[in-house]
Every structure is written in structure tokens, then in C-alpha cells.
């Protein structure tokens, strides 16, 4: 079982649009390694985002509490931006 940290940091490079990316095949394999059969899509994520963000802000272990939402965040660049934007607004 591969270390989640390594996969996540790999995947973060996959899903961010910033510089210095690993080779395309490596990125694809990282995404496949992270793929689950039962992922939720963007609409369902969006419906749960406010709850999720508040839990995250309270410092709760959202990966454990709302794993499907977290998985979607790991895999979807646009929704990740929505989450980060919302967190910035909540912190302000």
C-alpha cells in the first residue's frame, strides 16, 4: 500500500497549474493510483462544500469524516479552487 503522502503530493502537482511538473506518464499513473471506483462528481461536492469547509476550519479530520468530499478535492482542480476560495473568505 503506497504512502498516501507521496501520492497526494504527486497528485497535487498533477492538479495544480503551477510550474515544475513530473513527467506526463508519472502524473497519469499518480492519478490512477488515487482513483476510487465510487467517486462523487462536482454537483454533489458543491452541495456538501459549505459543511466540509466549516468542519475543516474547526480543525476536524475531514479526510476521515467526509472521505468522498476529500477524494473529490484531491482529484478535481476546479473544486479545489472553490474550496480554497471559500476557506479564505471564512478566515477573513
Amino acid at each position, binding site marked *: 500500500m503506497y504512502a498516501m503522502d507521496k501520492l497526494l503530493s504527486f497528485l497535487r502537482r498533477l492538479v495544480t497549474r503551477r510550474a515544475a511538473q513530473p513527467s506526463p506518464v508519472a502524473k497519469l499513473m499518480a492519478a490512477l493510483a488515487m482513483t476510487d471506483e465510487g467517486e462523487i462528481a462536482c454537483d454533489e461536492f458543491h452541495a456538501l462544500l459549505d459543511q466540509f469547509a466549516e468542519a475543516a476550519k474547526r480543525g476536524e479530520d475531514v479526510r476521515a469524516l467526509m472521505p468522498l468530499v476529500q477524494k473529490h478535492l484531491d482529484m478535481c482542480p476546479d473544486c479545489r479552487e472553490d474550496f480554497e476560495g471559500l476557506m479564505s473568505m471564512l478566515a*477573513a
Partner: protein
Amino acid sequence: MTDLRDNDTWLRDLRSEGALREQALADLMALLARQLPYGLSRYIAPSDPHSAALIEEVIQETLMRVLERLDTFEGRSQFTTWVFKIAVHMALNELRRKRWQDVSLDALDNEAENPQPLVEMLATPGATPETTVARQDALERILKLIREELTSRQQAALLAVSFEGVPMEEVARRMNTNRNALYKLIHDARVSLKRRLEQEGLSPEALMEMFSQDG
């Protein structure tokens, strides 16, 4: 700013008529005007001349959407968090749309000319470190799987979103679909590929390692 209304009061005020409702809307508008710039600070500087106009537009649209969808608020979070969620989603979509609308994207705009866009990209010399026989073999196997498992539509979508950093909304628009359906399309593609790899006795993690090493 202290939120003086609890969820029930927000809902009551917004569902009422006259002064109560107007005050609630005004308070929401002020709250959004103050907070939304923070939500967008990674993408647009407050000093940017377009920022004020965008924020103004998004606030108006958000208030309309909030009123339309008031009955869908389930009370699982603070009402203002729910409103912020709507606002930031709308604002980011608008920002992405403006930034990408004039960008030419071959694989998406010329689907007929690119039946295997993902395969083509991965097979491009220099895209992948191919300096060992093991890697060359592995790459050939991966490309074969992609050709067999993914439609050109799936390849184009995956290429655009995961490799070219094109926003999902933009890809969806060009492919005449919506973001939710696009996510499912890409997810199906990932699941198919992963299953095939596993059937062939290949591990995505091991392949990731193999193709991450230098030289």
C-alpha cells in the same frame, strides 16, 4: 463583522417582505463586498480595475441565486457560509470563463483531427523519459491500453483537464456538456485504465516510480 442573525432569522427575513427583507439583502451585500475579495485574492488583486466590476456583478447574481434557492438550504452550515460558497463558485467560474474564452485548444476544438490526443501527447519524444528498455516497454503497454480503453472524447478531456490545466467548466463548454458530466466522463476513463492495468498485472504506483526517476 459579527453575524447578528442566526440561520432561522436569515431565512425568516429573506422570506418576508418590505423592510426586513431589504435590510437582510443589504446586509448580505455588504458582507459579500467585504469578504469576496479574499476568496479571489489568488486570482485577482483588489487593485485590479476589473476586480470591482466583477465583484459587483457576482454579488448581484449571488443574491438572486440565494433567493431562488433559499428552500434548498439545509441548515448544515451557517447561512453565510452557504452564501459565500455560492458567491465564490460563481466568481471563479466567471474568472475562468474570461481567461480562457479566446484560448485555442487543438484537441478540444479539432476532435475529428485528433482521434488519440492523449496517446499522441504521451508518445511525443521528450514528453517521457524513455532511456531504459523497461520504460520503453512499459510506455508501449500503457499507450496500447489507452488506445483500447478510452474514446477520443475521454482522451481529449483527460488531456485538457489533467495535463493542460484547462478549467473543467471551459472543457465542458467546448465539449457541449456540463462540469458534472465531464467529471464522470474523466472518472470513468480513470477507472477503466486502472482496471486494465491491474488485469495486466501492472501497478500504477510502481509505474509512477518508474517514470519519475531521472535519467
